[in-house]
């Protein structure tokens, strides 16, 4: 009775089915939790995500088109006479400008990625973000590089300004990246100025928190936070972000240190999956972030 969407079983049979399906679910959860990332269920999950990656891309394109349509509708309500008069004359020009602007922005983003790659001497593969997570509890993105490109589970992923997450599953042609802002992410980190080590964790509100820093360590707004490489989960020396707020004083073990994430998921379009990197250009990248932040505040 594969995919029996209507069961007219008697009440006891229905309850037996209920118990059987619940039991199967619990067995699956248990098996999933006990197996490692190369296990059968993780493999199936990765395969399914790889298979639906093109559909995510279509959805993202449709989403962008819907945004454009929304803008167009807003424009139409501005002034119909003026718009009608200018519409035909300017249509081609507007399209060209939009396309040029798109190319310019893409070139800027790619240039920033190249700068980052040069700054860190990164060996890795560039990829485009083709989809976002399908549920509310996991902050993930799908990228169009997979095992065929050398991507493996556990590799660090950077955006134009630094670390944005880690590969959690890789299919042949696409991979899923858990963002560092996800509460399930935890990156071993250190403050560049004091070399004090801690852990950067994501949260449901989208902020990053630097935890496990010794109470006597001086932390100030603007301090640079880097991956420390401890535990081997993230490549060492990559920029995570800057300290934007410190709630509490030195000696207070319950200090809340907020770190600005490099990029938000909405702005992610191109990334680099890092195979290896040498930290040599953190200062240039962090000053670039500071400049961007100041520019945004003005």
């Amino acid at each position, binding site marked *: 009775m594969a995919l029996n*969407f209507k069961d007219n079983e008697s009440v006891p049979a229905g309850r037996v089915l*209920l118990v059987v399906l619940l039991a199967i679910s619990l067995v699956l959860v248990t098996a999933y939790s006990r197996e490692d990332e190369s296990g059968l269920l993780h493999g199936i999950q990765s395969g399914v995500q790889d298979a639906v990656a093109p559909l995510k891309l279509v*959805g993202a394109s449709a989403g962008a088109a819907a945004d454009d349509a929304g803008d167009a509708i807003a424009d139409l309500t501005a002034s119909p006479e003026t718009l009608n008069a200018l519409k035909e004359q300017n249509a081609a020009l507007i399209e060209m400008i939009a396309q040029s602007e798109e190319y310019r922005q893409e070139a800027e983003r790619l240039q920033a990625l190249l700068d980052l790659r040069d700054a860190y001497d990164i060996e890795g593969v560039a990829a485009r973000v083709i989809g976002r997570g399908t*549920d509310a509890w996991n902050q993930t993105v799908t990228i169009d590089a997979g095992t065929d490109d050398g991507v493996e589970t556990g590799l660090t992923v950077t955006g134009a300004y630094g670390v944005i997450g880690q590969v959690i599953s890789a299919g042949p042609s696409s991979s899923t990246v858990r963002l560092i802002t996800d509460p399930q992410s935890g990156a071993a980190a250190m403050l560049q100025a004091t070399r004090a080590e801690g852990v950067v964790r994501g949260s449901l509100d989208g902020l990053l928190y630097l935890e496990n820093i010794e109470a006597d360590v001086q932390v100030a707004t603007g301090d640079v936070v880097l991956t420390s490489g401890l535990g081997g989960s993230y490549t060492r020396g990559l920029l995570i972000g800057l300290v934007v707020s410190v709630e509490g004083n030195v000696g207070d073990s319950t200090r809340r240190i907020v770190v600005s994430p490099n990029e938000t998921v909405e702005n992610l379009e191109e990334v680099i999956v890092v195979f290896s990197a040498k930290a040599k250009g953190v200062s240039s990248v962090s000053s670039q972030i500071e400049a961007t932040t100041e520019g945004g505040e003005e």
Partner: protein
Amino acid sequence: MGDSREIFATFIGALVAVVLQVAVAPNIALFGAVPNFMLAYCLVIAIARPQSAGLVMPFALGLVFDLLSASPVGAMSFLLVLASFAASRIFSVVDNGTLFMPLSILIVVTLAVEMAYGIFLLSSGLSVSPIEAFFYRGLPCTLYDAALGLLMFPVATRFIVGSQKPDMPPLR
């Protein structure tokens, strides 16, 4: 004839829910709340067909949801089976012919599923406080899913339930 039409329509609806979850849901997220089309659809079917709603479809949809996410496989299938069963049984008992009851059940069961899913994740290593999980995910997702369910309900009663239940509950 009527049964096979209903099964076919339910199956098509489930496929549409999967496609919407993959292609649309991530792009209409609000403040981190990604709508769960599969949950809304399962509950709508359970409420629209309380006597004949099966459990295999919620199980299959839950499994697909789990495979599409980065969470433990089996968690959402467990919850959708349980939620569909509970929603259909509760509705059978409390149905008074108004839209209030389906909507109330939709909201309560959705909230229960979202919070139970959060508890699943908390037990598997998600390091956030339950209060944070409630305010940042549980509550907004519940409202979003309930709104989707409310939109789906008349469509389901029109196209899926068909002649078996011709009267949609009045808006009162």
